[in-house]
């Protein structure tokens, strides 16, 4: 089953601003990263997925349903975590999430049970009975996630879930999202302008820029066969580079590092052999995954 499919999806706002243009993409269930700079059209895409906006042209499908005609059915199966602050400060997390659970059609007692379950899953326990106004940013983000989870959706739409969090909070939030996608059996669409963050937890990555699709693929497909070995020696970097080049290895310099594409296990032996022959102090030798950002950067520069 396709999770989200769009076909020549275009959205032009009233003022003539084109937010999305001719976007065609299809993604499978799993954790999907939607990356793009601010203003790339991420939030517009989410609103189209929720049926809050209607497309100017093109088609869109979520969980096999068309949100512009079956909005209620789509929204019943989707949980949405907005980017901005959306929590009334004087309600407790438990009250708010229970109420929103009821708004999703859960019976009263079920809503209460599932609210405390959802809050427990995001890591809020006794503090859930305190007013949200006194929460830290990290706790508020968790409440926002819990309210998206309370009605047991099949798809979560998370708009910048790590916004405003410190590094530890980001890691915790990403781990939580990863857990939801892999252990809870709920597909997740994570929007972010930080590629490095999303690539850690996604199965699929969709990159948009200026309302156009940049690339959409499995993370594995993007990073496989692009692994490189990073070699660092305390001295004699140039000598080693010459030596490796002589061994027919396409070596490149990156500051103090030498980067050698990893062909097979033999590459290790060749490098170690060269280092040993030159009697250089080896500082490190490790396998480095190409970061997806580099892929996009390379692609963009080749376009230019």
């Amino acid at each position, binding site marked *: 089953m396709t999770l989200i499919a769009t076909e020549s999806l275009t959205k032009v706002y009233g003022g003539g601003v084109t937010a999305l243009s001719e976007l065609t993409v299809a993604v499978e269930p799993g954790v999907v990263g939607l990356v793009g700079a601010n203003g790339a059209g991420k939030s517009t895409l989410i609103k189209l997925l929720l049926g809050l906006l209607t497309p100017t042209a093109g088609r869109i499908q979520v969980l096999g349903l068309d949100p512009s005609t079956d909005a209620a059915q789509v929204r019943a199966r*989707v949980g949405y975590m907005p980017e901005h602050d959306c929590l009334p400060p004087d309600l407790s997390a438990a009250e708010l999430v229970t109420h*929103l659970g*009821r708004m999703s*059609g859960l*019976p009263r007692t079920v809503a209460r049970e599932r609210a405390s379950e959802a809050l427990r899953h995001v890591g809020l326990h006794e503090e859930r009975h305190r007013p949200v106004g006194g929460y830290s940013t990290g706790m508020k983000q968790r409440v926002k996630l819990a309210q998206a989870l309370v009605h047991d959706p099949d798809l979560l739409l998370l708009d910048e879930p790590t916004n405003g969090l410190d590094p530890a909070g980001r890691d915790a939030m990403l781990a939580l999202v990863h857990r939801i996608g892999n252990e809870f059996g709920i597909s997740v669409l994570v929007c972010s302008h930080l590629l490095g963050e999303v690539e850690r937890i996604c199965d699929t990555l969709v990159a948009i820029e200026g309302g156009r699709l940049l690339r959409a693929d499995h993370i594995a497909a993007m990073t496989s066969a692009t692994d490189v070995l990073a070699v660092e020696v305390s001295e004699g970097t140039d000598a080693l580079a010459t030596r490796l080049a002589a061994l027919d290895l396409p070596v490149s310099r990156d500051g103090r590092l030498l980067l050698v594409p990893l062909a097979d296990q033999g590459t290790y032996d060749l490098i170690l052999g060269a280092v040993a022959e030159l009697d250089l102090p080896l500082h490190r030798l490790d396998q480095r995954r190409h970061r997806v950002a580099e892929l996009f950067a390379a692609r963009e520069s080749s376009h230019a």
Partner: protein
Amino acid sequence: MPEPTGVIHDIGYQRYTGPRLGRRQVFGALYLHGVRTVFGLGRSAKAKIFPWLVVGIVVMVAAAVTAISSQIGQRVMTYAQFADSMSWLVIFFVAVAAPELVSRDLRSGVLPLYFSRPLPRADYPLAKLLALATGLWLLLGAPQLVMFFGAAFTSDGMGAVWDELLDLLPGLLYAGLWAGIFASVGLLVAALTGKRAFAAGGIVAVFLMTTPIVGTLTILPSETVNQLAGLASPSTLVQGIGIWAMRDQIVTSLDGGGPDLGPFGPVYALAAVALIAACVALLLARYRKVAAR
């Protein structure tokens, strides 16, 4: 269901396979939540002070009226007159309740959480409007019930109770009219701003500032303008309909009293319907815009 053991097991995430309620029940839940909010139930103690102060005042007035009536053996005021005389309290009640219902949600940005859920966009403002109208009707209707029971228990014979009931019903209808007009105007004003103080001020302004206009119109040298003057303010509009539809309930003094509507009674009724319809239409338009943000 409570587990028989005292051990807490981490059972992991559980999918929900039970029933999901439809639009009607969700609307009902939102409506009931709204009615509770109007009276500060399920809210902080601070939010309860004002609504229950007003409720206390109107019930006490009703009890006092009942007591005096039974002492002197004749009616001090009719049920509809009671609603009229409490109107200024209703204005302040609306000024507190309407912002509590809608401005708070606008300010906290919680609306996207509603609109990303299955309930249709129009259901949110309609449920809130119905909740506010219900709250106002209860505020005006409950004291009338107090008066009714007071009168019923002190009167003699079933016939008297029946007469009393026949007086009560138009009173409750009249209270419903007050509630409908005040709720739709008040909620519309409150839905325009996320600042509760502004919303409260705006509501009081709409209801009180229009009274001088009525006053000015009634002294103009044209009889038609004088007779139509009441249309300029929600309060006098409601009173005008009362005078037209149930004159004997509103006007009890022997010298006639009350503003003269001339032949324009039905105009007042039409104006009320148009006012409510316009407010609802504007409210829905307002939330269409809010939801698309």
